[in-house]
């Protein structure tokens, strides 16, 4: 039986849900199971029962809370502005703090630890890619790149902006970083590179706060000064923007204030980017990652940047989550796959039998959709391939 008697959540935040149910259709897990326990409204009621009515945080309650993807699609849908992300984050911390309830599988903690050891991660990723090639590793993952190309290097000692390269992003999607670099240089600016390092987003999601804080401090040290910090992964960007809350220090808040999604920085500088002349302007399907759309609310700038070189087709699902959710797709594979089915169906409807590319500004979404056979490219790569390069 649980030893947790409360969740240590902020009472006023917990009280701010009126239970109207307008969040329900915006919740990916409720959409697939149709169960109140898998909805934001239901999960808040569970948190209230534990925090206010002395209900125990038993397996039943934990199932309801731990199946939340933390996409935060419910937040923009909530007229009362319930800070659901904060509430569920607090609940997950409470769950992980109790050894008898811990949901994370044994392998998760060491696996997440590895994200903080960049060289090891790069080597490990290469081995995994090799294993896939010789058929040793048969999980339904998309093929990992055997070689990501050379690591990005700073273009100036005192750069105009920083590019945050991250952990998995640097191992798997260096082309995105290079595309960001090309676009930044084309606008006439110089960039510095953070070097390998994990932002701690997955740790924070899994309730491993101490690990997340340690990583955050290390990231902050890697990009000193006052230059803007540009991030090309929506999940990492959301995490970096939240360091002020995670660490609770003014230094962290100042650091977070410097963080921008690359598209946010590029959108006001589009005058510097000249599309390559073409007979037919391409059409592309935009998948808006939850951490870009719901959390950073920076999908507008991303669309502006893409619209420079292509016409955009939207999916008709109001930006419902694809089911990736950081480590969620590995922790709850069955639920994540059902959520993904809806997204793939929405993409198919948007395609309407045309050969259209899908762009997504988050590596987790790209991997998760890739495993279902959807080819996804990062919007920065898509755009960088279609503008006149300054330094070819």
């Amino acid at each position, binding site marked *: 039986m649980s030893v947790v008697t409360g969740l240590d959540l902020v009472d006023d935040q917990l*009280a*701010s*849900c*009126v*239970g*109207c*149910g*307008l*969040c*329900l*259709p915006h919740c990916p897990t409720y959409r697939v199971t*149709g*169960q*109140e*326990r898998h909805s934001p409204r*239901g999960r808040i*009621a*569970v948190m*209230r*029962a534990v925090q*206010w*009515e002395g*209900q125990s945080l*038993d397996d*039943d*309650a934990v*199932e*309801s809370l731990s199946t939340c993807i933390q996409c935060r699609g419910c937040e923009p*849908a*909530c*007229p*009362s*502005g*319930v800070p659901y992300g904060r509430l569920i984050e607090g609940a997950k911390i409470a769950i992980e703090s109790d050894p008898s309830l811990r949901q994370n599988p044994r392998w998760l903690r060491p696996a997440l630890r590895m994200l903080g050891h960049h060289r090891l991660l790069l080597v490990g990723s290469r081995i995994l890619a090799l294993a896939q090639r010789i058929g040793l590793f048969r999980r339904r993952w998309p093929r990992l790149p055997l070689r990501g190309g050379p690591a990005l290097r700073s273009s100036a000692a005192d750069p105009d902006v920083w590019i945050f390269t991250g952990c998995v992003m640097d191992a798997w999607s260096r082309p995105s970083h290079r595309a960001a670099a090309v676009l930044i240089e084309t606008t006439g600016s110089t960039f510095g590179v953070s070097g390998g390092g994990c932002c701690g987003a997955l740790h924070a999601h899994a309730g491993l706060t101490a690990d997340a804080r340690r990583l955050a401090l290390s990231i902050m040290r890697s990009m000193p000064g006052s230059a803007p910090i540009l991030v090309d992964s929506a999940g990492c960007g959301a995490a970096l923007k939240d360091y002020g809350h995670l660490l609770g220090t003014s230094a962290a808040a100042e650091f977070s204030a410097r963080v921008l999604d690359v598209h946010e920085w590029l959108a006001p500088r589009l005058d510097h980017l000249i599309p390559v002349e073409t007979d037919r302007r391409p059409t592309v399907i935009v998948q808006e990652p939850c951490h870009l759309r719901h959390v950073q609310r920076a999908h507008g700038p991303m669309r502006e940047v893409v619209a420079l070189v292509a016409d955009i087709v939207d999916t*008709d699902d109001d930006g419902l989550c694809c089911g990736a959710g950081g480590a969620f797709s590995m922790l709850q594979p069955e639920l994540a796959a059902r959520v993904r089915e809806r997204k793939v169906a929405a993409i198919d*409807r948007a395609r309407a039998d045309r050969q259209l590319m899908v762009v997504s500004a988050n590596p987790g979404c790209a991997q998760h959709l890739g495993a279902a056979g959807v080819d996804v490219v990062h919007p920065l790569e898509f755009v960088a391939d279609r503008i006149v390069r300054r330094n070819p």
Partner: protein
Amino acid sequence: MTLIHDLTAGLPAGAVTIDRVDTMLYAHDASDFVGRTGAVCFPETTEQVCHVVRTCAKHDVPFVARGSGTGLAGGATPLDGAVVIVLTRMNRILEIDPINRMAWVEPGVLNLDLTRGVEQSDDLFGLHFAPDPSSQQSCTIGGNVANNSGGPHCLADGVTSAHVLACEVVLSDGSIVLLGSEGSEDDGLDLRGAFVGSEGMFGIATKICVRLTQNPPHVRTMLLDFESVRAGADTVGAIIAAGIVPAALEMMDKLCLQAVEAYIHAGLPVDAAAVLLVEVTGLPHQVEAEADLIARIGREKGARHVRVAQDEAERALLWKGRKTAFGAIARIKPNYYLHDTVVPRGALPEVLDRIYEIARRHELLVLNVFHAGDGNLHPLLVFDRREPGVLDRVHAAGEEIVRVSVEAGGVLSGEHGIGLEKKDFMPLLFDDHDLSAQIAVRHAFDPIGLANPRKVLPSPAACGDLRHVPEGAWI
């Protein structure tokens, strides 16, 4: 054999639960009436619904159907350990027939998903499902049928009953009947008409044939703001008296504007005492003429500004503000309680004055956001349940509001249903003969009395396990 064992036998794995979290979550809808859940079932087919209903009959246990649980009158609250039949997994649009402008749907289809599904299937025809409750993004068609739901655009288009052609219904003995028909009206009694709005007491609709409505060729949406609520209310009557029935005619008062503006940032006039949101539809010349006349009437009655939505985005934003108003209440106080009485349009100014006076006397905040065109009030009493004694004041004020509305020639409910909330007020409106006639109709549909019993119709029996929020508990 136990009830649970028998229920499980005819349903897919995991479709029956008595887990504590589920029984807690399904013990109430969006109102604050908390009941007691016997079990929760998630059927996926009509046959599975029949199985659950037959099993309930065998064990003499009541059942209650539920969609998204957005109801505000306790209609889906289970009493006496009733089995909650959750229809969210029956959410397929079965058939769309654009030529005959109708569609067959399962009850768990969300209201807005139906219109979207129609658009996806063929947008050439430009059709939609007309009833548009403010909760339309979340509420189900089944729930709309049960409550005969309205919505802003029902002023011109009519409420749900006018848009339901037929229902396949599972009765409490497990038999399946078809009420109404796709084609012209049936001979005999209009049982479909009786079923729509019966709040789950007559049976469970498992398939619904809805009418689809042509999108209007031209739309104009305008916002008129006033320095007094009375000036706004007078304008409502004057618009209708001038011979215009707008597609929608809504009022929001100051407190409501402030809560909503904090969410949508649409530049709403938060210093106004009230605004009217008016929409006119039709052919371009007609729309322009009506919009001009409405603006002129508004100015004569004291409107400070008339804002006309310049594009579809602005129009959508104004409607988003109106339709999310209830949900935005927590920006003022964490709880609300509302009635939805309907009063004759001519009585609106007087009744609104009385409502503000009642709230003042009970030291409560009241916020008005409602379908002004058809006199359907939604006075929301907003409060913080953690404040001692506040619930008594809220209920006392609520009762006074109902009495004032009925005295003004009004009725108890426009669209939310009677449910548990208003059933004790039924004698205000109906005498014993009326009520026994209603009970007889109910008995004809459900002779064993297991379909959502002890709702709507007042019964002398005390409600043993119903609690109007126990001390210290939260829902």
